[in-house]
């Protein structure tokens, strides 16, 4: 099974651990994690070539999660990286802001369980895994016929 490289962005270390542990419990994929303490830290560490998916808190010091998503999308080279908000913000206006204006792909409200995460991420992770396996299969067949 391919490994999903996930960036976990939250100013709370406890919450970052909870997100990582819950993702492992979903058994949707094998995960490799990078952590960031706020949006600014995430932006400095983020490389769309080395990250498959981002889990982003909203309310953080220095730079909010929404600002991070907006700036990452504005760079133009990260549109293939799913951005999943993981946040306590749950008004309709906030969800709309994240998904419609900022360019987030999905939204998970805190608190969450493995079942909730699995439900929200099932298709997203499946697509990611398929996209990672496709180049490998193409290489295999190319090798067969070369």
């Amino acid at each position, binding site marked *: 099974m391919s490994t999903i490289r996930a960036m976990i962005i939250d*100013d709370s270390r*406890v*919450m970052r651990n*909870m997100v990582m542990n819950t993702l492992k419990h979903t058994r949707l994929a094998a995960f490799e994690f990078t952590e960031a303490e706020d*949006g600014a830290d995430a932006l400095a560490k983020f490389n769309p070539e080395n990250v498959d998916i981002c889990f982003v808190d909203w309310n953080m010091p220095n730079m*909010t999660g929404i*600002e991070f998503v907006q700036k990452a999308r504005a760079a133009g080279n990260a549109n293939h990286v799913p951005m999943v908000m993981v946040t*306590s913000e*749950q008004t309709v206006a906030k969800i709309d802001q994240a998904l419609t204006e900022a360019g987030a792909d999905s939204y998970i409200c*805190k608190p969450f369980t493995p079942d909730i995460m699995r439900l929200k991420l099932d298709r997203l992770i499946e697509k990611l895994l398929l996209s990672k396996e496709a180049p490998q299969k193409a290489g295999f067949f190319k090798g067969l016929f070369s």
Partner: protein
Amino acid sequence: MPTSIAPSPTGTFPAVISSVVQSAASDFFNLASQFRFVSQKSCGLETECGGIMSAISFFGEPAWAFAMILTEKAAITISKAFAGYEISFEDPDIGDALGEVANVLAGDICAKLDAEGIKSVMSLPTVVRGSNVSLLIPVGIASTQLLFMDETESCWFTLVAARGSSIMGRRPGM
């Protein structure tokens, strides 16, 4: 931590907000703890123990703030229920966990207030741990307290209206 709060001589804290806070706290505590709502009263609750206070402000009209005040044992119980593992009272992570608890509550509070037509933006949490810490409320500020208890321990929510534009709490992104 003796929690000595001067009672507000004038002004009534908005009932719709205290009702929403009670509802949000009850929903959260019902998920994984035995804490249940006991009573609402004017500020003046005192304890003599160590504890943790986790506070969040709400920018909007009205502007206000809540402080979730936990005894040491209550802090350990609630942080364990939230994080899924026990965190000792001396561990810095307990403040982190309870800041997140306040954050989760604030998100639900904002959503419930939004349903009542009250728009709010929450601050980042401020967490204080210690003993002999007092939350001082200026005279003339509307305030109220909600008491939750399990079999042995207590948790208070002190709700305070803001005076004008003065309010504590760091805005997200700053």
